[in-house]
């Protein structure tokens, strides 16, 4: 049992029990965390590509990607900096749709973004309805500071895995740590097991 902090009583979260992962607090704002400036890639120059350990490498322009069948996603999100936000509403294309017909030996992937950001995930964590390329938030085009024009959305993991400004997914045979993962953050990042930092 950790020591009681003298004089601290705290505010209990106004969340139903069991909905907030350990160490998180509920916010109604939408904080922004990025390690560099916000990129502003014009839509006519934008594309999304799947490459790496694949038999063929599909690519979509903005118009092609947004013409694909999209899904509404309502989800709670959890940032490693300790805020959680409930019932966030997104629209995007399921990774299942984008990976359809892609043959791969890879069991992992690296998402690469405008601005140089990368993050790594097991392939199994982005398939079967668990991940999207999201381009709308709350019914509006996704704002640049929140990752627009499009970001990866993987709500069951800490939100640094939901890479902003995503442009490419590279399938890999082995797990290759991304930007935060080489900087001391956890390789997998499950908020329910509080996997914030390496060794957690």
């Amino acid at each position: 049992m950790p020591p009681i902090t003298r004089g601290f009583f705290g505010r209990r979260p106004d969340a139903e029990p069991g909905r907030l992962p350990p160490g998180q607090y509920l916010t109604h704002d939408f904080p922004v965390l990025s390690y560099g400036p916000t990129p502003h890639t014009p839509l006519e120059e934008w594309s999304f590509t799947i490459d790496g350990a694949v038999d063929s490498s599909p690519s979509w322009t903005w118009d092609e990607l947004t013409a694909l069948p999209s899904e509404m996603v309502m989800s709670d999100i959890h940032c490693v900096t300790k805020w959680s936000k409930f019932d966030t509403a997104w629209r995007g294309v399921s990774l299942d749709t984008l990976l359809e017909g892609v043959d791969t030996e890879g069991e992992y992937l690296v998402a690469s973004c405008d601005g140089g950001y990368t993050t790594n995930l097991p392939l199994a964590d982005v398939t079967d309805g668990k991940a999207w390329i999201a381009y709308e938030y709350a019914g509006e085009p996704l704002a640049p500071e929140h990752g627009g024009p499009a970001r990866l959305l993987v709500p069951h993991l800490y939100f640094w895995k939901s890479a902003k400004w995503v442009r490419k997914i590279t399938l890999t045979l082995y797990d290759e740590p991304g930007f935060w993962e080489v900087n001391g953050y956890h390789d997998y990042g499950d908020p329910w097991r509080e996997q914030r930092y390496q060794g957690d």
Partner: protein
Amino acid sequence: MSPRARLAWKVARVRETIAETPKARSLVLEVPDWQGHRAGQHLDVRLTAPDGYQAQRSFSLANAPEDPVPVITVDRIDDGEVSPYLTEVVQEGDELEVRGPIGGPFTWSVGDGGPLLLVGGGSGLVPLMSMLRHRARQGSELDTRALISVREPGLALYPDELRALEPAANLDVRWTYTRSPAPDARDFSGRVSAEMLAALGPPADAAPHVFICGPTGFVEAVATLLVDAGHDPVRIRTERFGPA
């Protein structure tokens, strides 16, 4: 990559509290086996209520890495949960849990070289102060410019210490006051602008390492101004807090 030992929670004792402004306070902590930090890193703090309820938040380290003990500066968020406790309730001798230091990209040491451009909004100055204190302790003369945006002079963090650092070679620290005129002609009034950044320098072709920390809107605005002025986005590191 080899698995690393878990970054453990440790019980820290508050050695000293220092009032910095009416809203901000520094806490000097004694942490068992403290191994030091890199300027720009933060510390996680965890508080436990009598019924076992816990809250944790991150706070930037303010002191020079050369110090034997860590210091955080906490700015009170009026509707916050942890910062009001740390700025108003905690006393010398109290114990709280910490783990860290944490953070990689938003760090600098003299070994990384210069020039250095630091732009802080409000308590966003805190991790930049660790860099400035580190530079001073190392006797570095690397070209360093800092611009600090604060509402009014009374809310500025560490003003006397920063002015005392200033006679050092190649150091230029200036303030801009967003809700008040500037008492000193070297300083500015109003939000950070392209003109202020141009007056401060260094120019983009000097390729400074740039660190910007502050509220989200502030960081977005300053980073955009610097990219528009030709600074390579790769050399600009940001740390943001608060809602968009």
